[in-house]
């Protein structure tokens, strides 16, 4: 039987190796792409991302991928968005004022307002509701200074707390968007990726 193939959008920022490694350990092969047609049509697509919101949106625009990602989600196909990937799906971010996000998720991204240390770097507790399709409660690895405090119009929200509550992850149809890094979240993260692959 052919290996399951996971398509990772190559946004140009470096550490894709962890993401690829996580899928390889689950027995998948990974393909990097910048082609709108593959982003729209491949069966399993990941929007990774580290770095700044403005630069991330600019790369999607230059690569002509905004429309493909929007259409993919609207048509109910599966997408995994990770870290900055989740933020790019929102309306806008305080990190890059005046720049529109993909507006697939109805939420805005803001800086953590807390006396806690910034960035949040480490393992935090995620609470998933029982109706979640992919998400389960557990500890996930976060590396972020910005977050969405709320997102509306989704099926499932899994919150976490860092000074205040924020969206650790959400689900809508085939879309799974995680502020944390499932690929760096040990066995818990691997089982989440496994459920996402199986459910897509």
């Amino acid at each position, binding site marked *: 039987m052919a290996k399951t193939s996971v398509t990772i959008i190559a946004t140009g920022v470096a550490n894709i190796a962890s993401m690829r490694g996580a899928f390889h350990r689950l027995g998948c092969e990974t393909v990097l792409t910048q082609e709108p047609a593959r982003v729209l049509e491949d069966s399993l697509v990941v929007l990774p991302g580290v770095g*700044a919101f403005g630069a991330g949106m600019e790369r999607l625009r230059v690569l002509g991928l905004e429309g493909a990602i929007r259409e993919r989600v609207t048509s109910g196909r599966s997408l995994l968005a990770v870290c900055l990937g989740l933020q790019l799906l929102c309306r806008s971010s305080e990190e890059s004022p005046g720049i529109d996000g993909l507006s697939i998720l109805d939420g805005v991204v803001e800086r953590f307002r807390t006396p806690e*240390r*910034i960035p949040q770097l*480490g393992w935090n507790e995620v609470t998933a509701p029982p109706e979640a399709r992919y998400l389960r409660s557990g500890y996930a*690895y976060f590396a972020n200074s910005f977050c969405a405090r709320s997102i509306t119009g989704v099926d499932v929200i899994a919150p976490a*707390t860092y000074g205040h509550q924020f969206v650790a992850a959400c689900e809508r149809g085939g879309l799974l968007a995680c502020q944390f890094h499932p690929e760096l979240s040990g066995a818990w993260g691997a089982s989440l990726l496994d459920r996402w692959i199986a459910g897509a």
Partner: protein
Amino acid sequence: MITKRIIPCLDIRGGRIVKGVQFGNIKDAGNPAERAKLYEDQGADEIVILDISATDEERRACFSTISAVRAVLSIPLTVGGGVRTVDDARALLQEGADKVAVNTAAVRNPELISLLAEQFGSQCAILALDARSSGLMPSGYEVVVSSGKEPTGIDATTWARRAGELGIGEIVLTSFDRDGTGAGYDIPLLQAISTSVSVPVIASGGAGNVDDMVQAFEAGADAVLAASIFHYNRSTVTEVKAALAAHGLLMRP
């Protein structure tokens, strides 16, 4: 709530783990990928690899070590040692590092920090700050570089603050005086740095037992780094985390 982190540190030379005392007197301590995976299975929250290669040949071996570790590791990996440019950092990220630590080159050229933060984000740009006690510095601690061989005349708190302004995302704070001694972390150093910056601080250098780690967390550390205590099987990560949890510290189960 965010948990406190336990981070085993692998010093690598020529593709093997080595460990010394006060940055010298180096001994072999095992295979990096096997050890890293063992520590993950024991509950380690991250792994740090410091490349202490002296030659180009040893450095090339370290690159294949990083990709071998990445292949088996599903927790975050920080890599440092000899990073001088944005291209050096990118190469490590491509091999599988999630965060890159800069030390000597950043002291010589602080702009390196802002370049890394711009290019890869602050969460990816880590400062390895090595300090030793010095009566000549206002804080009592001086930054040392080149594996501790070279004093800089720079106050450790001044440098930590400056690195914070330039966009560093986290500080791995190593006490040169305590490195490899098992005499406990340098608590006044840790207090001085953790109150000077708003980014997370990882205590390093001197861990001998769980009480040392409790003291480091009480002094403001967000994570503790340890090498000898784990490499020589004095304690497992599992045992250390259970003991810290018994002290009331929040640990990832």
